[in-house]
Structure formats: C-alpha cells, structure tokens
C-alpha cells in the first residue's frame, strides 16, 4: 500500500499534453451531444490489432476520457459505436441489432482499414463487406492498425473538445 502510494507520488501525471484539436468537420449528430460521447465498441471480425490501439487510446498516456469520451457496457447507454474489423457473416446481424439498440441520435465510427474497406480480407468468403455496407458510418479512422493518436483525434471530433 505504502509502496503503491510512493509510486503514485513519483510518477505524477503520465498523460501527454493535449495536442491541437482536430479540424475535420463534425457529423451533425455530434453537435447535439454537447461534449459527452459514450461509446460501445463492437468487434465485427477484427484481428484485435485495433482493439489494442483503442485500449491504448483510453490508457493513461493518451487518456481519451479527458475529452469527454467514455466506453460503456451496453449499446443502450451509448451514443456512438466504434466498429473494428471487416464485418464477417456471423457478425452482420448482431452489428445491425447493436446499431438498432442505440438510442437516437447515434453515430458509427469505423476504426481501421478492415472496417473501412475490408483491408486484406476484401472478398474473403466469410466477409460480408465493410462496416458501411451494414450500418451507416459517420466517421472513419484509417490505419492498420490506426495509431492511438488518430483514434483520440476521431473521438475529439465527436466530442468537439
């Protein structure tokens, strides 16, 4: 306990100083949210590379929460879905239902190249298509996997902070 306390004192703040807010235009649904976006993450068939980066984006270093974004446990609590990976056949219907479960106004962020255009899995037999083929996508984050900075920038575009 004391050891932990000492470490807390020694480390102090780990989070890096906030970079410039992104200049990309916000989806109009985001305007209605007023600086608070709760996010449900859906893995539609990802290789978990993007998951690791999302985890990093909410870790102490990048601290996505400081911009008013928060991961939640149920799509009912969410304003935005973060979808990763090319949508596989088995995840097509669940993804659609998850989208239906989110109360309006709602947004979808496609994170990673697979989510945008199926990446290397394009045309694979188990793949339905990119996320945009199943649910309307408001924002895309390129990269395989995208850097946490990019994900944080996308989150800031939603929260506007």
């Amino acid at each position, binding site marked *: 306990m004391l050891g932990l306390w000492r470490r807390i004192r020694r480390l102090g703040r780990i989070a890096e100083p906030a970079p410039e807010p992104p200049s990309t235009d916000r989806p109009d649904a985001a305007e209605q949210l007023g600086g*608070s976006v709760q996010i449900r993450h859906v893995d539609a068939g990802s290789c978990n590379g993007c998951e690791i980066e999302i985890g990093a984006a909410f870790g102490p270093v990048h601290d996505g929460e*400081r911009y008013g974004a928060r991961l939640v446990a149920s799509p*009912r*609590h969410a304003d935005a879905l973060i979808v990763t990976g090319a949508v596989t056949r088995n995840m097509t219907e669940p993804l659609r239902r998850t989208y239906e479960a989110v109360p309006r*106004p709602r947004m979808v962020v496609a994170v990673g190249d697979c989510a945008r255009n199926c990446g290397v899995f394009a045309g694979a037999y188990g793949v339905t298509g990119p996320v945009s083929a199943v649910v309307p996508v408001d924002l895309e984050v390129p990269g395989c996997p995208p850097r946490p900075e990019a994900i944080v920038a996308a989150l800031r575009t939603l929260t506007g902070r």
Partner: protein
Amino acid sequence: MTDSTTLGLVGGLLQAVVIVAGAPLLVGLMRQVRARMEGRVGAGITQPWRDLRKQFRKEPITPRGTSEVFRAAPVAMVAITLVVAAIAPFVTAASPLPGVADLFVVVALLATGTVAIALAGIDTGTAFGGMGASRETTILALVEPTALVAIFALSVRAGSTNLSAIVDSTLAEPSAVLSPAALLAAAALVLVIVAETGRLPVDNPATHLELTMVHEAMVLEYAGPDLALIELGSAMRSAVYLGLLANLFVPWGIATEAGVLALLVGVVAFVVKVGVLGAALAAAEVFLAKVRLFRVPELLAGSFLLALLAVTASYVLA
C-alpha cells in the same frame, strides 16, 4: 409559523436543490481524483452534468416485454432520494417534516429505492437483470443489520432516532465524537455506505464485464432520459449517504437558526464535508480491488461486529 419550521422549510428546499445540483459534481470529483491518482488528466468534474444533459435529450427506449414497473422505477428511485435529501439534516438541523426525519425511515426509504431498481432489473427478463437484482438485494439484506445496529448505537446517546435530535445531541457534547462508540459506529457506517452505494471493494462502478456487475447489471436496458434519472439517482444516493455520515459525526457548521448567513455557512460546510469524504473514498479505491461476491458477507459480518461493539462500548466505556 415558528422559527424552526421556517428554517426547516427553507433549509429543506435549499439542501434538496444543493444535492440535486451537486451530486453529479460529487461523482465528477470522485472520478477526477481517481484519474489524477492513476496519472490521467480526467474529464473534469462537470463531465457527469454534460452526460446527464445529453441523456435527457436523447430518445427514450422501451424494450419489448417490459412493463410499467420498468418505466416507473427510475422515477420512484429519484423521488425517494429527493425526499430524503429534503428532510434529513444536511444544511439545517431542523427538518421540514419532523415526522419523516427518522433514521429508520431514511434507511428504509433508501432501501425502497434499491428495491424499485431491482424489480425493474427482474422485469426486463434478461439474465443480467435478474443477476444484478439478486446480488443487489442480497447485499441489501446483509447490510440491514449493520445499519440498524449502528443507528442503535447513535440513538442510545441521543435518546431518540430522530435525525435532528441526534445532530443536536452531538452539537451539545462535542467530546462524544471521540468516544470509541462513535468511532466504531462511524467505521461500521462507512462499510454500510460502501456496500449501499456500490463502490469498491463491494462493487466496481466502472466495470464493463457483466458477470462482475452488481448495480450496473440491473440498468443495462435503460437508455436516454430513464438512464439519466438512474445515474442522477445513484449520484444523489452517494451524496445523501456521505452527507448523513458527515453530519451524524461532524455536524459543525450546520445551520441551527434561520438566517441567510447561517444557511450560507451550512451549505458551504455541507459541500466541503461531502467533497472531502468523497475524495477520500475515491482515493482509497485506488488501493483496493473488488472482492469476490462471496467474500462480501465477511466484510459485512465485520461491519456488523463493529456496530455491535459500538453499542456495547457505549455501556462498557462510560
């Protein structure tokens, strides 16, 4: 209209407003403290208010197969907490409704709020809802003895279970606060509060894993304004519990006579006390891990022991 009635009415209204407005800030403060101790920056203490504003504007959703119980539960829970916030001595020692400001009534009312949410959780008919309800009510049942025996310990000294009377007696003899009885009772009540407000180590309010949830599991189906009410309600519960703890043991600063200055001092003192308690709780949580559900009874048995010791201590150690 006597002086104390006016004080009660004005103060009751005032403290209800203060709690409704301040409870989300308390949650924000606790999150902020945790964030800072974890080396993060944190979203700022006004973030919960932003969340609430947004959720109130969002679209309400009625899951198919749920009944009026599901829709009424959040209102009932917030209403109950609001009543407690208005009648218990937070800003003023006098109460607008002396016939309700009884420690048993307050504890039982807060339990009723929990029951409303538990019924809603069952009403959804999902496995998680039932699981959360089952766990929440189990903890509620095991907490009850501790709470009431601790109340016993407090009220023996005051000769009454009326909250105002207890506060007045503490104000009358400040030395009693340092007596072992009071300290043990305080320790027991802290454990009660941790269990009732679903904080670590009993429940992890920030968990995403349904199987480890207690309170969260019951509200997975709520969206939009209903969810906002639920979150506001649980924030108010924390504020009310912490406020009770603060004013039962350290009532100084509470307004005892009507007057703008007195009320102002009362508000400031209340806010400071609750803020300090909340920050301390959040800081302690950084060092704690959630205990297994079936280790919780040990914790509560321990707190019950403390409460019982508090009662006997007030006789053993005159």
